[in-house]
């Protein structure tokens, strides 16, 4: 797989350099050099919202640092968790004296590092809470929802928690809205072609000439089935069906939908998927609010797409509508 890069060992740091150079609202911080935070220091009295994870998923995670969204983010190597040190630094940079929410995807490595960072910072008197994104319905059954991986849908929780934090809400309230948003968000992905970790000599998985995998994870974790490519409408139908079959408790008739490219899949195909998904949802009596279609959480040059549904209530819907501004997502009043 051809990549526009220099030495693989510099991939992440050079990418981060470019990211902050191109976006003056962001800054690189910490001794580790692996923390992206808002260039403006956090307002004292504001609850901090921190995320983090491996590199290779831009705009996730670092791209969502901005007003009404995240305060800071720790970044690991490609598809590897951020170190404890960078997690500690990210939390400290997001500390405005009212505590910090750690909001990240449910992966073992990320959890170990963030948990350890949180414990170590308790000694320094920073209160932290944790909410784990676990929206990927393909990764475990409904009874084992706590085991599910976190994928694109986490950005809904970034948005609601970030918006609520800007209002001056306290840590418990910000934590609760993040948890509610995660609880009401479901995602499923479909992979068409793999990506390759820089420096690795083989792709992250292999798929036949005309094969796709339903439910594959964003690092190539195994999915639900692998079979020949079918028409987009059939794929969209199955994805929506699987998401609705897993509807959260208390779900109403309004959803926000995110049709997301895993990387190489172009906007044209996303809109074809969106068209069908929308028709299917409307036929099921479900109204779409604030649809998102684009590159929101990728796996570098992986081909494929994911669909997320956030089953909103009035509170979530209002927070999704609140102004927000980061390099990859702007919501205006």
């Amino acid at each position, binding site marked *: 797989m051809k990549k526009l890069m220099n030495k693989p060992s510099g991939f992440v740091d050079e990418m981060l350099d470019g990211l902050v150079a191109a976006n003056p609202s962001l800054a690189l911080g910490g001794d580790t050099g692996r923390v992206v935070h808002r260039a403006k220091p956090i307002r004292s009295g504001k609850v901090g919202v921190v995320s983090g994870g491996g590199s290779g998923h831009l705009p996730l995670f670092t791209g969502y640092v901005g007003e009404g969204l995240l305060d800071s983010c720790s970044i*690991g*190597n490609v*598809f*590897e*968790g*951020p*170190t*404890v*040190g960078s997690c500690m630094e990210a939390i400290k940079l997001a500390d405005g004296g009212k505590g910090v929410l750690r909001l990240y995807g449910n992966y*073992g*490595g990320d*959890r*170990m*590092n963030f*948990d*350890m960072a949180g414990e170590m910072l308790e000694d320094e008197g920073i209160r932290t809470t944790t909410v784990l994104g676990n929206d990927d319905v393909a990764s475990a059954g409904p009874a084992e929802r706590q085991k599910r991986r976190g994928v694109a849908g986490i950005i809904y929780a970034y948005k609601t928690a970030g918006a609520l934090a800007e209002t001056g809400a306290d840590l418990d309230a910000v934590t609760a809205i993040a948890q509610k948003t995660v609880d009401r968000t479901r995602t499923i992905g479909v992979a068409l072609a793999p990506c390759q*970790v820089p420096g*690795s000599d083989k792709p992250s998985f292999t798929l036949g000439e005309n094969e796709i995998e339903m439910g594959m*994870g964003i*690092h*190539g*974790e*195994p999915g639900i089935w692998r079979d020949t490519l079918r028409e987009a409408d059939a794929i969209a139908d199955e994805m929506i069906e699987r998401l609705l079959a897993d509807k959260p408790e208390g779900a109403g008739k309004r959803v926000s939908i995110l049709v997301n490219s895993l990387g190489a899949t172009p906007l044209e195909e996303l809109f074809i998927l969106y068209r069908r998904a929308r028709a299917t949802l409307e036929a099921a009596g479900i109204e779409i609010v604030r649809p998102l279609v684009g590159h929101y959480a990728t796996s570098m040059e992986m081909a494929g797409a994911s669909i997320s549904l956030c089953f909103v209530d009035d509170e979530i819907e209002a927070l999704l509508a609140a102004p927000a501004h980061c390099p990859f997502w702007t919501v205006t009043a």
Partner: protein
Amino acid sequence: MSESAARALARMFGRMAEAIEAEKDHLSELDGAIGDGDHGITMSLGFKAVNKALAALDLDTASPSEVMQTAATGFLDAVGASTGPLYATGLRRAAQALAGRKELDLAACRDMLAAFSEGIRDRGKAQRGDKTMLDVWLPAAEAAATAVADGRSKQDFWKAVTIAADNGAAATATMVATKGRAARVRERSLGHLDPGAASAAALVRAMAETL
């Protein structure tokens, strides 16, 4: 003149680094089969960092607990992989277990192994049979406890501990991974040794050789 406990621990970490260096490529190969192929590199980085941190410590005045704590910090700063928080937590717990102790008698070694393995378990939330390094550390700690309860000699103690560790590592080949990166390949992990278990067994042997 018998070596101080702090010096013995430092020598143990030196031997651990050598053992990892010797196994480095093999460990990465094992990880390549079911993970991301970097386990040799992460362990090598980690133990080099531990020894570098220890080199800056005054072993004449440092306590065994301080040696462990220094090792924990050194490891943590160097390793981003899953092994970073796992071993750093193990080492921190071991440091707590050794707090106030001056001697590394068998009871201290037993407590150290127990704290170490519990730290790893608490951090990683894995259990025996999940095909991880815990399948080495937990049986090794149990063997140590039994050996002390049975009043075994130092030699028999370490023999029992290394046998338990080696058996535990070998057994991982028959397990399906459910934690860590190897869990992604599920059934395909069957038949492969877990790299973290293999390196753990090498670390236990280094302990036996030096303590």
